[in-house]
């Protein structure tokens, strides 16, 4: 883990609110790991590390002034990372993601044998290189199909509602994982702000995760 500055190389629009930001620099990391990026706001924001077009990249959903600044205004970004535990699994996996995890999915591709399905609420404006479905109905249908294929493991990374739908469908499977997006302030285990309730008590997304097994999470 270290502090560094990233130089923006390019931005690409994925859909209505999500963008890919690629960088000139490279850093070593494992799939699932993330970095904390400074914005004009008071707290750095976590972004899953990944690739786009062979370059280091993150996907940014614009939610407010901080994320908008990253996409539209920043040239250099102060950050620290890589953080959290890497996720590398043998066997054939299925990755079910929202457009905010597209760059992360390319990192998974690099290390694992994995089929990637992107579910987007709004039309996708870019060829993501993965099978992409638009709208809730289409995603549900795809989810059932993926579930029937019986992969060795599944990993879901997206909104809370997407996680819930996927868990309902996949909870009978042997290995189902979720990459959580809890609020984080430090990303390094210091502040205890990223707590999430699990069946083993409070866990910290930044140091115990960000990937957790589905059966360990509290779904109620």
């Amino acid at each position, binding site marked *: 883990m270290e502090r560094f500055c990233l130089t923006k190389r390019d931005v690409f629009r994925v859909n209505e609110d999500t963008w890919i930001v690629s960088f000139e620099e490279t850093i070593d990391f494992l799939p699932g790991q993330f970095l904390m990026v400074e914005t004009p*706001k008071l707290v750095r924001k976590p972004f899953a590390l990944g690739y786009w077009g062979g370059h280091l990249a993150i996907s940014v959903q614009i939610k407010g002034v901080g994320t908008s600044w990253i996409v539209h205004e920043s040239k250099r970004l102060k950050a620290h990372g890589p953080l959290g535990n890497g996720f590398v699994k043998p066997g054939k996996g299925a990755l079910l993601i929202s457009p905010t995890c597209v760059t992360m999915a390319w990192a998974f591709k690099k290390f694992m044998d994995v089929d990637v399905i992107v579910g987007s609420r709004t039309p996708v404006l870019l060829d993501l290189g993965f099978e992409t479905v638009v709208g809730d109905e289409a995603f549900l249908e795809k989810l059932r199909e993926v579930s029937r294929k019986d992969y060795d493991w599944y990993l879901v990374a997206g909104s809370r509602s997407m996680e819930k739908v996927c868990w309902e469908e996949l909870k009978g499977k042997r290995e189902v994982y979720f990459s959580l997006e809890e609020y984080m302030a430090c990303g*390094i285990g210091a502040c*205890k702000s990223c*707590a999430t309730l699990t069946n083993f008590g409070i866990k910290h997304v930044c140091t115990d995760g960000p990937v957790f097994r589905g059966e360990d999470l509290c779904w109620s």
Partner: protein
Amino acid sequence: MLELKPPLVLLSGPAGFGEYLKLIDHRFVGAVVLKTVTFKPRGGNPPPRMAEGPFFLLNSIGLENPGVLSFLEDLPKLAVPTIASFGGETYEEYLEIAKLVKDKAKEFVAVEFNFSCPNVKEGGLTIVRDKEKWRRLLVELREILDDSFLIAKVGIEGLFVEDAAEMAYQAGWNGMTLVNTVRGLIVDKGKILLGGLSGPILKPIALRAVYEVKRRFPNLYVIGSGGVYSVEDAKDYLMVGADAIGIGSALFKDPGIVEEIGRYLLEVRR
């Protein structure tokens, strides 16, 4: 006296148990104040535990910590001077902690007692409510930890800071950290969130507290705590008499700021 080089501390809570030292050049950190440790282990409050606005953070971590026994069994060994921070839920717990810590107190350049956590139901901020009882507690803690550099961390609620300072001074305490977070509330997407306010919003409040205390008790060692994000902020604290500058929430924005402020303090306090 406490000779920190530079006179800059990473504040209790945001500094965890020293994790930020992995990201910051140690030469610019005078000391780390460890996360407050309580008598019993605490799991902390349920999430969400933090929210932010344009000028503040609101946290309700709820003093998540392993409890004093596990803490003492496995003391964090940091590469910089360390200040321990303790908090009780009752009068008796504060005393018990002090007795347990006594043997290991030499490991710390100072021992801070947190009399001001707004995020716990018992103890925390409410301990200062009964002035006479708190005065006795200060005297008893001083007697037990007779060799330690003792720092009282208070907020602005429950008691005027200058009154708190007078009681601490008379009880023979060496310093104060001013101030802890102030109770706040925000409404976020229709939900009420309670917590302690920190960040820029706290700076004028903390500056006033430092000013009121240092003017009356120049010999109390005061660590200024609230909204330090720049060298300019640090200068303001020095101006009102702070002996050391505390950095908490700013770590979440840019840990690199510690090096800038630390470098400045090394220069002016040479």
